[in-house]
Structure formats: structure tokens, C-alpha cells
């Protein structure tokens, strides 16, 4: 493949870079060739953020009570190895299924004659707004209600399917973006050289999507490592359920931390595999001007089949939680449960939006130096800094909370049990979503414009503010949306860190679990509000993708 000059109109490139879809392109390589060392102005804040992001992992190792002996003892506990095996099985299963669903649906929308493509794009994005614990509780309630004898949704298979139904948009969105921006010329060339349509797609187009798919899968893999509520509800045991039960039932934080070290090592392994799978970034565009729309496969008489499949996926991902929540609301209105407490609902909604909003803002600002460093000054240090922020994404919320409780009680007591500490927790957990997304935008903001700005006498800060940021703004916005979305539906950490007496929608939902499963009647007002609030950023994400 030849090294092509970056040519496309940079501004439109950046505007259309909706979601982490694209590889740091040719600009980054040109820059690397020049080997400028990164300015301290960038390295210092990036390194500080990375250190803060690693603090929870450091807490695991440095907290008094941890030592190698404890780790070995935990590894020798008979229950540990099966937990590790279960975790790996779930991880592989979810990655395979979300990969299949995400890529398959993106291809269906971008490359076939499927009717109502825009509608399906929105519907396939909305599952992002459904918290996994709400989704899984709804599925369990649905199963007991309509299929009382069935154990189908329990165990590995059920956990893989139900988690994948919420997580596949993380693969779907970037893949769709990447597909829509691909120049069809290469695939056409391959066809003209005698390849069949499927072979040309698999051998030419799919490899170009590798970066986008890998980013989505990385997010999902780390999410699976950290997931608790859904996994427990579906009768599956992983390292994380073991960790959480050690804290909440056994009250054994030492043992939980030792297991979390194993989990963090798993995250490092996942990051390493991701590096291998992802491969070298490829230039997306090799020609001048804008790409032609690609060929679309005619579905013909199979169209109803594909429509039915899409409808079934939508129904499973959205209709089941909505149906259970809505029927909860109906029995609530019918007099079951207590009347809606409007002030409580209002304050929970405001808290949710406020905490998630701050998390999105702070994470966005913290991610910027890391993004710039990784994209514009690639090298060992910047790669290390960038990778280090991902580890926290794989740690269960309860470990994050324990770490922040400990750190704040020891050194930051005024912050303890304030919203500020909670926001810090969200930022550390969801920073990777912002970093991953921003990289795409910054990579596509042509470096040549930066160079021109510098050549015309502007300083680095000025260039950053006037050229780089405006060009990457859409991607930065998408990153902020993803962080806000995840922070808004977070439960475990919020339960342990929220200011005493203050609630989010998710913790309010949780207070209706006196019967140990969600009481959908009492929870309905909070559940519906949470689903609606989650739908807004999800819709914005779909719009950003469609804007291409």
C-alpha cells in the first residue's frame, strides 16, 4: 500500500468523523517521520491524568494488606480458577456476538438495499441508553412471567446474549461510520480483478474496518470484565461477581482486592491482544475529493427476512425492557406501589444529569492532552500513557469505590461523600471512552493545517485552540456523550460514593429492590425517566453518525 498524501478537505473529514471509527491516518505517520519530541506542556498534564487514572489500580497493589502471598492464596482457592475460566468464556462470547451483530448490522445498513436504513440506525443505537442491570432484570422478569419453566436465559448463553444486546452498539456505531467513509475504489478494483462480491468485501473492505471494530470490541471486553449486576442476575459467576460478593456479603476487601489484581492483569492482557489484532492503522482514503457512495447489495426477495431479523434484535434489546417497565407503570397507576413522589423524581433526575454532565465535561478536558499526545506524538511514552487510562474501565465499580473511599479518607477528607468525588470516580472509569473517540477526530484534523498555523507564527496553544479543537469538535462531542451516557446509568460506584441523602435515578431504582429483584411497579417512574434521559444522548449519537 502506498503512502498517500493527506488531501481530503479536512474540515468535512472532521465533521463527519462521528465515532471512533477511524485510524489515526496518514498525518500521524508523516509526523512520526519527523520525530519531534512532545512538548512538556502536553506531556505533563497527560501524565498527571494517566497517573490519576491508574490510582485505583495502584491502590490494589499498594494498599496495606496486599502481598504476593495473599494473591497466591486467592489463586489457590478452589473457586478462583473456575471464575477465571467463566470470565474468559463470557468475554470471548460477548466479543464474538457483539462483533457479529455490530459489524453485520452496520453492513446491512450501509451496504444493502435494506429499507428504512435511518430508522434502523437509530433503533440499533438506542440500546446504549438501557442500563445493563435494568435490561437483565427486565429479561428475568419477562422470562419468569411468560416462560416460567424456562432456564434458557440463565448461565453462560443467556449472559452472552443479554449483555451483547446492550453492548453491540459500541461496535455497530464506529463500524457504520467507517463503512460510510470508505472509498469504494479499492473494493471495485478488487472486483474488476475477478474477485466475487463476498470475497472482495472480506479481503479488501473488512480489513479496513479492523481499527473501528477493534475499538468497539475493546470497550466491550473491558466492560464485560467489570460487569456485575447483569451477570449475577443471570446466574453466572465471574471474577467480578466473586469480587463484589467478597465485599458486600463476606466483607473481605483484602481478598476482593487480590482478585481485582487478577482482573486488572486480565485487562492488561486484553489491551495487549487488542494491540496485536488492531494492527497498523491504514489510510482510509487514497483519492482526491469525496468518495462515491459504495455499491449496495440488493436483498431482493430476502428483504422481509432481514427486516424481521432487525425487528427481532430491536425487540429483544429495547422492547423487553420497555414492555416490563411500562407494565410496571400500568400496575403503578392501577394503585400498586406508592404514588409518584415528584420532588424525589425531580431531584434524582437533576442529580443524574448534573453528575453525568460534570463527568462528561471533566473527562473531555482530561482526555484532550492524552489524545493529542497519542495522535500527534506517537511513541513509547505516549502509547504507555494512552493505554494506562483503559485499565480502570475493567475494574468493577465496587473496587473503584473502595479505592476512592480509601484515598479520600486518607488524603482528601473534605471530598469524602461529596458529588465531586463521585464525578472523579466517573471520570476515571469512563475516560477511555472520551480518549478513544477523540483520537479519531484529532487524527483526521489535518496536521497540515496545524503546520500552516505554526508557520504563520501561531504558538502551539493557539494552534490547538483555533485549529485542532474546532476541527475535532464533533468527535470530542461524541466522546462526551458516551461518557455522560455511561455515568448517568452507573449504579455500583454511585451507591457507595453518593453524598449522603442524595440520589441518582439509578440508585433510586435500586431502593425498590427490597424484594431483591426490581419492583418494576414502584421503580417505573425512575426507570422510565432513566430510559428517556438515556435515549437523548443515544439519539444524538445516531444523528452524528447519520450526518455523514
Amino acid at each position, binding site marked *: 500500500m502506498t503512502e498517500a498524501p493527506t488531501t481530503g478537505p479536512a474540515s468535512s473529514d472532521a465533521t463527519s468523523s462521528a465515532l471512533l471509527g477511524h485510524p489515526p491516518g496518514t498525518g500521524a505517520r508523516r509526523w512520526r517521520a519527523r520525530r519531534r519530541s512532545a512538548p512538556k506542556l502536553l506531556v505533563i498534564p497527560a501524565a498527571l491524568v494517566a497517573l490519576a487514572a491508574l490510582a485505583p489500580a495502584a491502590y490494589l497493589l499498594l494498599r496495606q494488606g496486599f502481598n504476593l502471598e495473599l494473591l497466591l492464596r486467592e489463586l489457590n482457592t478452589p473457586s478462583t480458577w473456575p471464575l477465571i475460566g467463566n470470565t474468559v468464556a463470557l468475554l470471548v462470547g460477548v466479543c464474538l456476538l457483539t462483533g457479529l451483530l455490530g459489524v453485520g448490522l452496520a453492513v446491512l445498513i450501509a451496504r444493502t438495499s435494506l429499507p428504512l436504513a435511518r430508522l434502523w440506525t437509530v433503533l440499533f443505537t438506542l440500546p446504549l441508553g438501557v442500563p445493563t442491570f435494568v435490561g437483565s432484570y427486565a429479561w428475568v422478569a419477562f422470562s419468569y412471567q411468560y416462560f416460567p419453566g424456562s432456564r434458557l436465559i440463565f448461565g453462560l448463553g443467556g449472559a452472552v446474549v443479554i449483555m451483547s444486546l446492550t453492548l453491540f452498539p459500541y461496535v455497530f456505531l464506529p463500524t457504520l461510520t467507517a463503512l460510510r467513509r470508505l472509498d469504494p475504489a479499492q473494493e471495485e478494483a478488487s472486483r474488476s480483478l475477478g474477485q466475487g462480491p463476498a470475497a472482495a468485501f472480506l479481503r479488501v473492505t473488512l480489513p479496513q474496518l479492523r481499527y473501528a471494530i477493534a475499538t468497539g470490541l475493546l470497550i466491550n471486553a473491558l466492560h464485560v470484565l467489570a460487569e456485575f449486576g447483569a451477570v449475577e442476575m443471570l446466574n453466572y459467576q465471574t471474577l467480578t461477581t466473586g469480587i463484589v460478593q467478597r465485599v458486600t456479603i463476606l*466483607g473481605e476487601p483484602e481478598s476482593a482486592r487480590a482478585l481485582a489484581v487478577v482482573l486488572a492483569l486480565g485487562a492488561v492482557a486484553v489491551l495487549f491482544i487488542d494491540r496485536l489484532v488492531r494492527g497498523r492503522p491504514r489510510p482510509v482514503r487514497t483519492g482526491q475529493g469525496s468518495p462515491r457512495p459504495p455499491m449496495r447489495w440488493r436483498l431482493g426477495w430476502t428483504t422481509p427476512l432481514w427486516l424481521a431479523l432487525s425487528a427481532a434484535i430491536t425487540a429483544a434489546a429495547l422492547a423487553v425492557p420497555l414492555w416490563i417497565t411500562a407494565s410496571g407503570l400500568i400496575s403503578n397507576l392501577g394503585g400498586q406501589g406508592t404514588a409518584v413522589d415528584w420532588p424525589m423524581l425531580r431531584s434524582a433526575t437533576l442529580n443524574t444529569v448534573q453528575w453525568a454532565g460534570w463527568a462528561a465535561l471533566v473527562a473531555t478536558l482530561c482526555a484532550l492532552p492524552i489524545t493529542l499526545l497519542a495522535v500527534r506524538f506517537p511513541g513509547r511514552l505516549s502509547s504507555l500513557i494512552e493505554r494506562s487510562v483503559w485499565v480502570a474501565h475493567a475494574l468493577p465499580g465496587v473496587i473503584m469505590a473502595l479505592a476512592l473511599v480509601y484515598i479520600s479518607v486518607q488524603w482528601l477528607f473534605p471530598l469524602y461523600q461529596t458529588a465531586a468525588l463521585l464525578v472523579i470516580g466517573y471520570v476515571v472509569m469512563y475516560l477511555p471512552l472520551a480518549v478513544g473517540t477523540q483520537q479519531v477526530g484529532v487524527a483526521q484534523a489535518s496536521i497540515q493545517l496545524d503546520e500552516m498555523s505554526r508557520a504563520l507564527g501561531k504558538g502551539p496553544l493557539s494552534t490547538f485552540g483555533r485549529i485542532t479543537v474546532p476541527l475535532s469538535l464533533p468527535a470530542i462531542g461524541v466522546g462526551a456523550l458516551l461518557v455522560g451516557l455511561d455515568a448517568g446509568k452507573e449504579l455500583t460506584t454511585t451507591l457507595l460514593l453518593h453524598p449522603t441523602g442524595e440520589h441518582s435515578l439509578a440508585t433510586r431504582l435500586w431502593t425498590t429492590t427490597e424484594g431483591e429483584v426490581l419492583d418494576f411497579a414502584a421503580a417505573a417512574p425512575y426507570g422510565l425517566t432513566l430510559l428517556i434521559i438515556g435515549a437523548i444522548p443515544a439519539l444524538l449519537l445516531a444523528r452524528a453518525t447519520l450526518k455523514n
Partner: protein
Amino acid sequence: MNRQRNLSPTLRSIAPIFAILLAFALAACSPGDTDQTAADQSVDKAAETTEITLYSGQHESLAKALADGFERDTGIQVRLRAGKDGALANQIIEEGQRSRADVFITEEPGPMGDLARRGLLTPVPEDILAKSAQRFVPAGGSWLPWAARSRVFYFNPELIDEADLPESILDLTRPEWKGRFAYAPSGAFRSTTAYLINTIGADATLDWLKGIRENGINEQKNGKVRDSVEAGQHEFGLSNHYYWYIMTRNSDHPEDIVSRVHFLNNEDAGALMLASGAGVLASSSKQTEAMQFLDWLVAAEGGQKVVAESSPQFPVNSNVDSVYDLPAINTLTFPEFDQAELDNVDEASDLLKQAGII
């Protein structure tokens, strides 16, 4: 390059972006109150009116009802922090001398015993302990029992006759019960384990746990033991009595509920009656108000009434009857033991891990 000169246009150029992001976050704030001022206000309030902070491992709805009742009866404000026994006990240990909690209430005796052993609790005065059911008062009196929960079987009469249920949970490891019952590794299950260690020894307990793991289905949560038995997936399950009563209360059609509760009504470990505890933190600067809460908690017209009305747990004051259709506690047979002895939670936890249940 002159960085000085470039600084201000830089700031000017970045400003709009920051403004947008800030607006995004600020739009979310309720008008004119940021977290800091909210916190300040609550501190001011604390100075004017008395206020205690309650950490609760009980389900939040009951904890909230207790907090509201105490506020109503005494005028002392309660700041409530609800969570799980184990996590909150750990939080109190981490907070140490600076703990924000004045009072801690739990579901299980174990975490209370754990905190007492670490010297984090103020012993409860005799006159308050005297108001509780004496059979539940732990030796040493470091915490106050204020409600009780019974271990039971839930069973599905369409699948098994009540008369055919095993008389002892120790029988469940026999081959005949394989695949027929559900259990959940809850706090109460750990208390059962702790009790077994004290009565049949650690080795026999470990064997029993391994047998349970082999023969039973781990439903992870008591609520799912109940729902799966109700759905007919298992003949019966080990759980705590009150989840079943909560289901009947929350159900649209309670008359359609198939499953039933079976109190073992004997001296078996499956009939354990576990005390929910309340304790005052030694680090609290509000010992008087905190003890007042404990005193109120066991008063017939105070906390006991709230327990009787908003939770299917057994009140410990024999003059108070639950509004739920519970058998009277003094008609039930259950093992007599010192609740303080269940502070061997670490050993119990270790066995649960050894057996591969957690």
C-alpha cells in the same frame, strides 16, 4: 516564537469551546445551588438542629421509614446512607476514627460482631438492651437486636408436599435431593455457615457446603430463589422468610401465588432466627442522640411499630404484632444460641470460598 503575545488570542479561541461544555454541565445544575453550597447548608443546619447519620445495611425502604419515624417522634434529623451490610461495615472500618456514621443498623448479626470485635462500637446500656428480646441479646451487649429473620424453605406445592420436605438442611447433601432445591450465598447463608462451624465443626461444615454446591442450584440472590421456586423451576429453596411476604405484598394478584413458606420449626440450622443489629459508633460525637435512636428502635410505639408495619421481619418486642401474616415468634421453635458467637464471619467466609460457592 513569542508565546506571551499569543496567550490571549489563545484563550479567546478556546473560550467558546469551554463555554459550550460548561454550559452543558451548568445547565444541569439546579439554579443557584452547587454541591459545595448544598454541603455548606447542610453543615449549617446540623449546627442548628440535632442530626445523626445512619448507615443502614437494611433494604432502603425500611431504613427510610425508620429514619422518618425517628425524626417525627424526636425532632432529631436523620441523614440516611443505605447499602449492604458488608460494604458499609468495610466503609466504617476504612473511615476509622473519622467515621461519618453515628449509628449503624444491619440485616445480619455477623458484621455487628465484627465491628464490636474491632472495638468500633460503644456498648449498649443495660436499660436499652432490657427492652429487646433477651434470647437475641449478644453476650457483651455491644449491639442491640431490634428485629429477627427466620431461615425457611420456600416450596412449590405443585412439585412437592410440605410433608416431604427434609427435616434438616444437613440432609440436603444426600443424593436423593440432587437438583431439587435452590439456595443463594447471602449474608444469612454465611450466618448459617458460621453457626454450623460452631455446632458441627469446620470440617463437617466444609463437607456440607460442598454437598450443597453439588446438589443445589445457586440462584445467587434470595429474591431469585423465591421467584424460581414460584415459577416451578425447583421444588424448594433455602431462604429467609420475609422475601416471600414482600412478594405477596407487591403482587397484583396475591391469590395466584403458588409457593408457600415452610418454617422448619425445630432445632435445626435451617430454622435459625437471625437478629438484625443496631450499634452506636464509638467514634461518634453524638452518643446521646445515637443511643436515643437505639432506645426508640426497640420501643413498642417507636421503631417496633415501624418494623411491624413496613417490613415482614419479626419485631423483637413481644407486645408488637406484625401487620403481615407471620406466625407469632413465640409459637416457633428455633435453635437457642448467642448471636455474638456468629462473629466468626471470617472463618465462614473462608469456607464459602473453599467450597466454591462464592
